[in-house]
């Protein structure tokens, strides 16, 4: 074992030696520099290894063999080993990244860099407060030197601000040290802690000065303008060091000195300062467009988050360290990586990050780093946040949960905007950049550390059972073969999903609910993937993301615990985000999708937290026994699931996201993905149970929401000119029916809900597949630019016709089954008013259905479409399979509905429907699907035959016989009869769908951004203002903590 003192000895020795080297020895200096950093990494790494493998005892080193206060005490324990390893690894990788720059600037630059890393190490290891002061000062001086590396005017200004404010804070620290020494008679931190300085008014000022100086070092909001400027102006390579190594060290130092004020409400104030910093920094960042400054705000926000966690350590108990570590390590790897990427791109504006598309490896790592910051699975921060929120909820600290979730959401606002720019922003010409190997390696190493730590922490937290490894490994395998042509990956994916369905099926025996949804999720996956054969090329990135979404969906089905459910919910969200953003114009829509999704996910998380806190049981069945704020918990869960079902108020992301998605993605996200929300709602309602006094109001309100969603969705569809958006609005309406039906909490209502769910899956998949295919074929989304396709695409026409018969609820197809059950349920439940709205919405649906089939298939063939052929067979095959499904479901619904009836019967008191073969009888009447099918089918065939017989004598009207054509060809589209066909209705009823809700959300986001813009004016750029902020911060903190304000 190499003693930790060599960390200091090697670094200092090297630094001084290098100062003596002339220009001639430059190359040797470079080698020594890297070798020196390598040996620091080795020393701390072997200590870490020793602690982890051999569980060695903490080593305490007295320099020069004296006892304190005459010697400096260094400590190398497990925590120190972790922190110094983190610092030295970042230092080594950062040195590699910066090597050419440092090399150009000469030995002195390397010397300063070494000193920076060395002093950060000592700050972590030292147990002596004065020593801590010295090395914090050395660190500041070294950093002020490194800031100068870029040689730009802004860097000089930033460095000056940094020097002045950190000088003031170290002055305070010095005063604190001398006072504390006076009272405790020692300079070691532990003796000072044991002296209980905070307990006596006179000595509490000493404790105050010490603590406030360390808080200032961590750049609390709003007294942190001086710190942010460093991130902005320094070279990103230095920014990475400050954020990864420097911030980790300051946090650990803070953790060491915190017990100095271990009493009264001090920890509470610290947590509060952390929370304010977490929220404030993220808020201000929402307006930021400079990538480095944005990362600076985000870093400070994360440090604030960690400060808050440390402040809450009395509540979190022994989980504090592991929770903070999981957040810290995500921040560490992600920030270092992001700063380094920023250095490669060298862009002034985050919009220029679209250049990243040229380098898929960097783009992938960029995405991984952002998701790690937000706390998506499988990254360590996900587990950290989960554990944090469960523990806080268990101890009744709800307001802290709200703070964490709100701040995380605000973080999502700017991080996902940034990601969207990188993936999708249109750029006339992408700026060129070079990725040299010595810069790529550090970034990739951070990526590896991030994924490695994810695996390790999953193990430490014992979260392994929550993860469904087989699907995830399959996703990775598909990712590995991403370079192959699409049809190969398609075949592999379909085979994989089919096998997994086969593998999973036996475990779902006797669980009809999950069987239905696995049918929708995986059956749907296979069918929609078949349509993918129509696509050429490699479709880079499509299959891993699609499979990630399906893996998440399967995980929802398999979930037994809340963690498992949430893990997979996030997995599905991430996968679907990347699928949606693939569409040509999808950037803003994917952005609003992900924002609604994470807000919803946080609502679910908090709901789960309350359930966990009530039962101390992580299983999903804890949801049925929520005793902590049950009404709130159920509402949060419902809102969370409704962000996925796009219910009224939370629906504005859907039309764009579904309408602009690729032709085979639309059916995936519409027919399949929306059902995840339905599945969540069903689980929730089953847990709530009938007559739960805590949810009566909620269910009633949700019923209204469902009814109004149906109306608004259907009305919205009526006024669309874009075929895919029409279908998207129609989805909103259909999901409204489903929500409405399930809120009944009656047997009939649920039966109707299931019927609608199954129907919507089938017909919406057909419609989006076929219409999507047509849109691609014709090169337009606008229905008024289509027409006459019935002769060109007869198979598509029949598919669409059958689907709209189902939507319309016209006998004999299964839509009628839904409606019949539905009105039975409405009458039994007595929700007549809502029922009337639904009834009206049903009539409205005919308008858009007519518009769809008329504008696309009937009417006049357009000149530029004369040579169009039928859409690809690969799209028609899954559609016709689904049509067969519809036919079977229509003719023999009892084979599905009767088992469902039996399944739900135990949950509701009265049996209200009886089945005799295909004959269903309720208290209100009876219905026999098979008979109806035969009767209507026969009538239809007779009529059809009669029509054909009649048409033999009919006069054929040619296309340009304008007397009959109802539209004039070769004129602007606005004269097309289908264009704005429902102008009259719009005049009368259009107010219902005036974009009030979209406006509401727009106003909300504008106000938030305005507020952020107003807040960030405190960062005026003036050193003197920043100094004033710091002084005011100290005064206010004093008044609150000691002054008893």
């Amino acid at each position, binding site marked *: 074992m190499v003693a930790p003192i060599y960390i200091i000895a090697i670094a200092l020795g090297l630094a001084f030696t290098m100062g003596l080297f002339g220009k001639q020895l430059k190359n040797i200096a470079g080698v020594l520099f890297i070798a020196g950093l390598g040996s620091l990494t080795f020393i701390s790494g072997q200590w870490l290894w020793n602690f982890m493998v051999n569980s060695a005892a903490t080593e305490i080193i007295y320099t020069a063999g004296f006892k304190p206060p005459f010697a400096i005490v260094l400590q190398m324990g497990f925590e120190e080993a972790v922190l110094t390893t983190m610092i030295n690894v970042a230092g080594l990788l950062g040195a590699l990244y910066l090597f050419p720059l440092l090399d150009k600037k000469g030995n002195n630059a390397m010397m300063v860099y070494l000193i920076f890393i060395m002093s950060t190490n000592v700050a972590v290891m030292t147990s002596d407060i004065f020593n801590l002061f010295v090395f914090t000062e050395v660190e500041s001086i070294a950093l002020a030197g490194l800031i100068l590396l870029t040689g730009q*005017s802004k860097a*000089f200004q930033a460095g*000056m601000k940094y*020097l*002045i404010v950190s*000088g003031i804070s170290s002055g305070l620290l010095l*005063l604190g040290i001398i006072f504390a020494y006076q009272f405790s008679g020692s300079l070691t931190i532990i003796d000072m802690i044991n002296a209980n300085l905070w307990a006596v008014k006179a000595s509490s000022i000493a404790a105050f000065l010490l603590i406030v100086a360390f808080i200032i070092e961590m750049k609390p909001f709003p007294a942190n303008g001086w710190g942010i400027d460093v991130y902005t102006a320094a070279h990103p390579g230095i920014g990475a060091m400050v954020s990864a190594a420097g911030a980790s060290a300051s946090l650990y130092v803070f953790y060491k000195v915190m017990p100095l004020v271990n009493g009264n409400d001090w920890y509470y104030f610290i947590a509060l300062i952390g929370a304010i910093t977490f929220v404030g920094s993220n808020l201000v960042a929402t307006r930021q467009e400079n990538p480095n400054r944005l990362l600076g705000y985000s870093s400070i926000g994360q440090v604030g988050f960690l400060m808050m966690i440390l402040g809450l350590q009395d509540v979190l108990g022994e989980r504090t360290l592991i929770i903070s570590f999981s957040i810290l390590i995500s921040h560490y790897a992600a920030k270092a990586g992001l700063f380094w990427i920023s250095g490669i791109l060298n862009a002034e504006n985050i919009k220029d990050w679209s250049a990243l598309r040229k380098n898929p490896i960097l783009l992938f790592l960029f995405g991984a780093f952002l998701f790690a910051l937000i706390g998506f699975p499988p990254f360590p921060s996900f587990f950290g946040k989960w554990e944090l929120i469960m523990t806080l909820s268990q101890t009744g600290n709800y307001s802290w949960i709200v703070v964490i979730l709100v701040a995380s959401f605000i973080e999502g606002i700017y991080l996902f905007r940034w990601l969207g720019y990188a993936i999708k922003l249109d750029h006339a010409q992408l700026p060129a950049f070079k990725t040299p190997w010595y810069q790529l390696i550090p970034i990739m190493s951070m990526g590896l550390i991030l994924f490695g730590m994810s695996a390790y922490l999953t193990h430490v937290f014992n979260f392994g059972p929550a993860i469904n490894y087989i699907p995830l490994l399959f996703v990775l395998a598909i990712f590995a073969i991403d370079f192959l042509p699409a049809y190969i990956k398609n075949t592999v994916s379909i085979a994989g999903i089919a096998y997994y369905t086969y593998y999973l099926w036996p475990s779902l025996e006797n669980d009809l609910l999950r069987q239905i949804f696995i049918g929708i999720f995986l059956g749907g996956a296979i069918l929609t993937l078949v349509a993918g054969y129509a696509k050429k090329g490699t479709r880079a990135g499509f299959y891993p993301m699609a499979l990630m979404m399906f893996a998440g969906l399967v995980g929802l089905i398999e979930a037994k615990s809340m963690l498992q459910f949430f893990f997979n919910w996030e997995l599905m969200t991430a996968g679907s985000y990347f699928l949606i953003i693939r569409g040509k114009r999808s950037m803003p829509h994917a952005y609003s999708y992900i924002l609604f999704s994470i807000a919803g996910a946080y609502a679910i998380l908090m709901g789960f937290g309350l359930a966990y806190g009530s039962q101390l049981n992580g299983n999903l069945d804890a949801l049925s026994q929520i005793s902590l704020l049950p009404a709130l918990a159920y509402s949060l869960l419902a809102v969370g699931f409704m962000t996925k079902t796009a219910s009224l108020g939370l629906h504005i992301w859907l039309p764009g996201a579904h309408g602009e998605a690729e032709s085979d993605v639309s059916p995936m996200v519409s027919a399949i993905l929306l059902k995840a929300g339905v599945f969540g709602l069903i689980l929730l309602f089953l847990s709530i149970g009938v007559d739960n006094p805590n949810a009566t109001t909620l269910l009633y309100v949700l019923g209204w929401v469902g009814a109004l969603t149906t109306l608004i969705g259907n009305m919205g569809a009526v006024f669309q000119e874009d075929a895919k958006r029409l279908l998207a609005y129609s989805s909103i309406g259909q999901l409204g029916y489903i929500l409405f039906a399930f809120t009944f909490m009656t047997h009939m209502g649920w039966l109707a809900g299931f019927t609608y769910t199954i129907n919507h899956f089938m017909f919406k998949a057909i419609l989006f597949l076929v219409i999507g295919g047509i849109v691609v074929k014709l090169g337009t989304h606008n229905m008024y630019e289509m027409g006459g396709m019935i002769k060109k695409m007869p198979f598509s026409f029949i598919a669409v016709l059958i689907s709209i018969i189902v939507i319309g609820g016209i006998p004999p197809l299964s839509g009628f089954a839904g409606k019949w059950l539905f009105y039975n349920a409405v009458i039994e439940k007595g929700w007549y008013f809502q029922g009337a709205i639904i009834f009206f919405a049903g009539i409205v649906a005919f308008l858009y259905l007519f518009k769809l089939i008329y504008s696309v298939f009937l009417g006049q063939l357009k000149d530029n479409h004369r040579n169009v052929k039928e859409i690809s067979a690969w799209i028609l095959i899954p559609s016709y399979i689904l049509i067969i499904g519809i036919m079977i479901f229509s003719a023999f619904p009892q084979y599905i509905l009767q088992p469902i009836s039996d399944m739900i019967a135990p949950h509701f008191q009265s049996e209200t429907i009886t089945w005799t073969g295909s004959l269903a009888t309720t208290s209100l009447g009876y219905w026999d699907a098979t008979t109806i099918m035969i009767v209507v089918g026969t009538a239809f065939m007779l009529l059809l035959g009669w029509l054909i017989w009649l048409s033999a004598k009919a006069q054929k009207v040619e296309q340009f016989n304008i007397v009959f054509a109802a539209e004039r060809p070769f004129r602007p589209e606005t004269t097309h009869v289908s264009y704005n066909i429902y102008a009259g209705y719009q005049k009368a009823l259009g107010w219902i769908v005036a974009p009030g809700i979209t406006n509401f959300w727009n106003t909300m986001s504008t106000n938030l951004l305005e507020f952020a813009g107003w807040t960030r004016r405190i960062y005026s750029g003036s050193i*003197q203002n920043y100094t004033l902020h710091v002084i005011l911060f100290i005064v206010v903190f004093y008044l609150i903590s000691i002054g008893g304000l």
Partner: protein
Amino acid sequence: MEYIILITGLALILMGLYGIMYIKNIFRIVIAFALFDTGINIVMVTIGYLRNGMAPILDKMPTEGTTPAIVDPVPQALVLTSIVIGLGVSALMLTYVLKLYEDKKSLDINSFKDLKW
């Protein structure tokens, strides 16, 4: 006597802070910072001082049973270190002033507000 010194030290700290926040010339701001630093050093020495105490240098063993009034050497050692660090920081600040002046040909603090928001 030591109270006068203590008060002087505290007054220097406040003067220094005032100077940092209100003087417009960055060169003078560095001087103000040096005042602040000196003030802190003075306070440190004063706090470690024992009235009528001797310098902490013993030339012979103290007699049995008596405790000689010796000034605590630790604060003095700390002050020495702190002075050295203060020197380093001030020198670095002056370098920055030089760089800033070369860049904008101005010593007015208000001309260095390029970084904001």
